């Protein structure tokens, strides 16, 4: 039986559809206490006094700690994992992010006091009895405002609120010259609005210090348990790493927001030792809005120059990227190396330059949100392309065909060297647009659109062709770019004596279905049944090490690590088989779960070899017993999925309401292990990308209040906001990893947003509107139509 390439139903589903999943908040430890964190209601305020006496006196309250209690033990706070130096070489501004703030709150939601009680309700009551006096200070929330003269400073040591400035690409003078000589320049001012990831499971953490073992256990909603352990043990709490076990059990979605090491994780761990009892903290939803790292929030001016024929001659981008009040784990990398590097898109643009500032504001930290930098790059490129087509009177599909990088497979043809550092691995960009146009019935649509306009019906079509970077990432490369971590992955394949196989992966599944996809790979390579394979992840005491799941890296990096270990298992197995079959290793072949002496019917099964490895009575000399291998896989390049997304919308001429009639997505994610799971990843990504275009966006007022910090106010897509999607794929294998896979987790979210906005702009093309800010709510569209 072969499994790879088949839509095998997920092995993890049964526990979830029967209510037997085990999420962090479901876990109960004897003698466990419950924590509530008292948070600042102000975006910027000096803390004048904290009075916990009334709260402490309440029955059922176990302990209360403030930032002073924590800093007294020498703990500074949580660090960031990436450094971006200023253009002049100065190090970026790296202010501390304390577990609880002591003198000043720098955003709404900043933690000030932790209240621990026998039960959650008591902890909530006691938190309300904590009395904090504030001196409220002026605040700044938007990135463009942060750098204005006289803007309130978030950190005293960061003048103009600038954390770093950064540039990438060709020398700016060359790009300026290219644009100066352009026949046409399309210029857009773009706000890529702040998004709130909103995994359905709110974050939760349980700290449990076991005094007898002198060991800490942290259960947490993490995409990244090993990195959390490393950061928390070595860089926050200063406790021995081998005495910390971090378990990320079933995790209810992440979308980037659970990559990072959060203050609450260190806080419950620290408190648990302090009080000698387990401490659980579970975020409420509004608390999640106010404490989960947000995404995007760029203010950009982008100019693209064209020659007379419509060939792109240059791209100049200037961006101010919001980082929030503190630097989250990967925050500095997102607007820089995950954004500026993607500005080549899938076009032959000869000259590109980006200038970018990362700035502090009195808002929640911003970090990776599904796509992380690549959606922002794709959005500005694809808005420029459709706008340019409109301005130059060209067809948007034709403009793309004219500028596409020609196909290259990365094997017989070299990869494509961009102007912005990356070398694309393989791509066939024309093919995805061909297929998209075919699926949408482009010529027919244009005819329908023209006919509809005669009757006042506003139909629009929008395109987005994108390339992105996944499979994050070669350690030496990211190290040179400022990462404080390697980005390899580990995998252990432990063959049991009975031939059953346990696989320990450093990837973490929080919805991606690794237990199924990885089992398919293992079962196929070993020629055994999927039922004989178990995938174990998310526990730092079981899995040797891991860099976790984000950047669509699990299969390309984690899967490749598994393949390496499987190869080692088969290599050793062959030696044992050769001994048993009295043949030379090179005379053996392995297929369908057995080694056979070529050209004979002499064979021995995987199960027999497994048993022999653990009962090595008749065994090769100088060969160790056992069949258990670990590997680390460090990729040699990023992977580069690409695709074409097409949106068809109708704008209600009376109300401005946008109805998404059709959404077509043709994605190339390289080889596919489980088509059903890949399709599901695309669907979910599309919904989030479409959500950004039409519905979602964090709104901060001028005082730094997040005014839509609940599901009553923040408009996430619901089932009847979306159509069923029409999706297909092309397959251009990745040339540099053993599975030929590129990654599918973020593609849907990266390509879809500009397609929808372009479609709305196309529908509104008779209204003389050049650009509209997302989300395209009916109010915003109606006002533009009536301006």
């Amino acid at each position, binding site marked *: 039986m072969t499994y790879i390439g088949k*839509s095998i*139903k*997920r092995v*993890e*589903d*049964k*526990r*979830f*559809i*029967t*209510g*037997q*999943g*085990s*999420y962090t*908040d*479901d876990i*109960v430890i004897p003698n466990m206490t419950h924590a509530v964190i008292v948070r600042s209601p102000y975006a910027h305020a000096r803390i004048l006094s904290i009075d916990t006496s009334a709260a402490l006196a309440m029955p059922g309250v176990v302990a209360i700690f403030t930032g002073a209690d924590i800093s007294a033990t020498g703990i500074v706070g949580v660090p960031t994992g990436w450094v971006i130096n200023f253009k002049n070489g100065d190090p970026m501004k790296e202010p501390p992010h304390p577990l609880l703030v002591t003198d000043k709150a720098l955003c709404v939601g900043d933690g000030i006091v932790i209240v621990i009680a026998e039960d*959650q*309700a008591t902890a909530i009551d006691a938190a309300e009895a904590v009395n904090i006096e504030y001196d409220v200070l002026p605040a700044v929330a938007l990135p463009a405002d942060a750098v204005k003269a006289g803007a309130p400073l978030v950190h005293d040591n960061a003048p103009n609120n600038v954390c770093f400035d950064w540039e990438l690409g060709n020398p700016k003078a060359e790009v300026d010259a290219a644009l100066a000589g352009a026949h046409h320049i399309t210029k857009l001012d773009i706000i890529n609005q702040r998004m709130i990831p*909103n*995994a*359905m*499971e*709110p974050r939760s953490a349980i700290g449990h210090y076991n005094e007898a073992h002198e060991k800490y256990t942290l259960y947490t909603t993490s995409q990244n348990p090993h990195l959390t352990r490393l950061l928390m043990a070595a860089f926050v709490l200063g406790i021995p790493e081998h005495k910390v076990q971090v378990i990320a059990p*079933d*995790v*209810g*979605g992440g*979308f980037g927001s659970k990559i990072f090491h959060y203050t609450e994780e260190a806080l419950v761990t620290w408190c648990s030792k302090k009080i000698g009892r387990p401490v659980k903290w579970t975020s*409420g*939803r*509004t608390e999640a809005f106010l404490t989960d790292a947000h995404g995007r929030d760029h203010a950009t001016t982008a100019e693209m120059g064209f020659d007379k024929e419509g060939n792109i001659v240059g791209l100049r981008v200037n961006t101010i990227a919001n980082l929030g009040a503190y630097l989250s784990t990967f925050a500095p990398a997102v607007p820089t190396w995950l954004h500026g590097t993607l500005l080549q898109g899938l076009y032959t643009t000869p000259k590109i330059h980006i200038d970018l500032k990362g700035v502090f504001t009195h808002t929640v930290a911003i970090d990776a949100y599904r796509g992380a930098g690549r959606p922002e790059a794709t959005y500005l490129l694809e808005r420029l392309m459709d706008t340019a087509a409109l301005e130059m009177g060209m067809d948007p599909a034709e403009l793309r065909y004219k500028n596409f990088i020609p196909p290259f497979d990365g094997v017989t043809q070299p990869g494509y060297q961009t102007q912005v550092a990356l070398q694309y691995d393989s791509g066939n960009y024309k093919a995805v647009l061909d297929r998209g146009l075919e699926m949408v019935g482009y010529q027919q649509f244009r005819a329908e659109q023209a006919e509809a306009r005669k009757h006042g019906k506003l139909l629009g079509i929008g395109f987005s062709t994108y390339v992105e970077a996944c499979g994050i990432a070669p350690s030496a490369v990211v190290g040179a770019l400022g990462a404080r971590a390697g980005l390899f992955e580990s995998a252990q394949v432990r063959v049991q004596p009975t031939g059953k196989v346990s696989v320990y992966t450093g990837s973490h599944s*929080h*919805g*991606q*279905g690794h237990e199924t996809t990885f089992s398919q790979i293992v079962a196929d390579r070993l020629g055994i049944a999927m039922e004989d394979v178990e995938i174990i992840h998310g526990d730092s005491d079981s899995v040797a090490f891991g860099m976790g799941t984000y950047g669509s890296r699990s299969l390309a990096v984690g899967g490749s690590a598994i393949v390496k270990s499987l190869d080692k298992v088969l290599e050793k197995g062959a030696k044992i088989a050769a001994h048993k079959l009295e043949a030379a290793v090179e005379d053996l072949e392995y297929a369908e779960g057995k080694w056979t002496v070529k050209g004979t019917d002499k064979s021995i099964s995987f199960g027999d070899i497994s048993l022999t490895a653990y009962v090595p009575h008749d065994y090769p000399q100088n060969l160790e017993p056992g069949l258990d291998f670990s590997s680390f896989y460090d990729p040699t390049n990023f992977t580069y999925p690409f695709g074409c997304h097409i949106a068809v919308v109708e704008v209600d001429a009376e109300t401005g309401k946008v109805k998404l009639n059709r959404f077509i997505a043709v994605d190339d994610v390289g080889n596919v292990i489980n088509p*059903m*799971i890949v*399709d*599901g990843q695309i*669907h*979910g*990504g*599309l*919904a*989030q990308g479409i959500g950004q275009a039409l519905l979602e966006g964090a709104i901060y007022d001028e005082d730094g209040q997040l005014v839509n910090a*609940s*599901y*009553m106010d923040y408009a*996430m*897509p*619901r*089932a*009847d906001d*979306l159509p*069923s*999607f029409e999706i297909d794929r092309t397959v251009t294998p990745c040339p540099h990893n053993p599975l030929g896979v590129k990654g599918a987790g973020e593609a*849907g979210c990266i390509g879809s947003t500009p397609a929808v906005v372009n479609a709305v702009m196309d529908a509104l093309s008779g209204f003389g509107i050049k650009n509209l800010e997302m989300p395209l709510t009916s109010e915003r569209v109606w006002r533009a139509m009536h301006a």
Partner: protein
Amino acid sequence: MSVSISVTINNKQYTTQVEPRQLLVYYLRESLHLTGTHVGCDTTSCGACTILLDGKAVKSCTVLAVQADGSEITTIEGIGQHDHLHPIQEGFKEEHGLQCGFCTPGMIMAAADLLQRNTDPSEQEIREALEGNFCRCTGYHNIVKSIQYAAKKIQDTKVAVI
């Protein structure tokens, strides 16, 4: 000051002392350890806590435990068994209607409510019936297909939804 309530949950009778302010979802999760019912928000918006109360879908974060006194409740733990899945559970598995699984119990209960009322819902009717339930993973595409699968299975086998 606690109050005694008596409820039937998944065909089992419980008589328990509860705090008058305790929400039903916390009664289920914390007092009875029925943790399949989840809490995803604090504004009755996400539907992760959806259960059937006397046969109707309700958000158990917006019902006090004392209000459930004398009623019959079905939670995700009671709608099917591992070896005998409910057609809706089966539909979610067959059509890949879940990813992280957090919204899934609430989705399944909301679907049960719909299919009791409408055995042959259109795609639009399904999408409207899920108005009170957020999913962030699937884009709803396969959830719709899962419920269509379940509707067909229920029609074909003529079993009662609950």
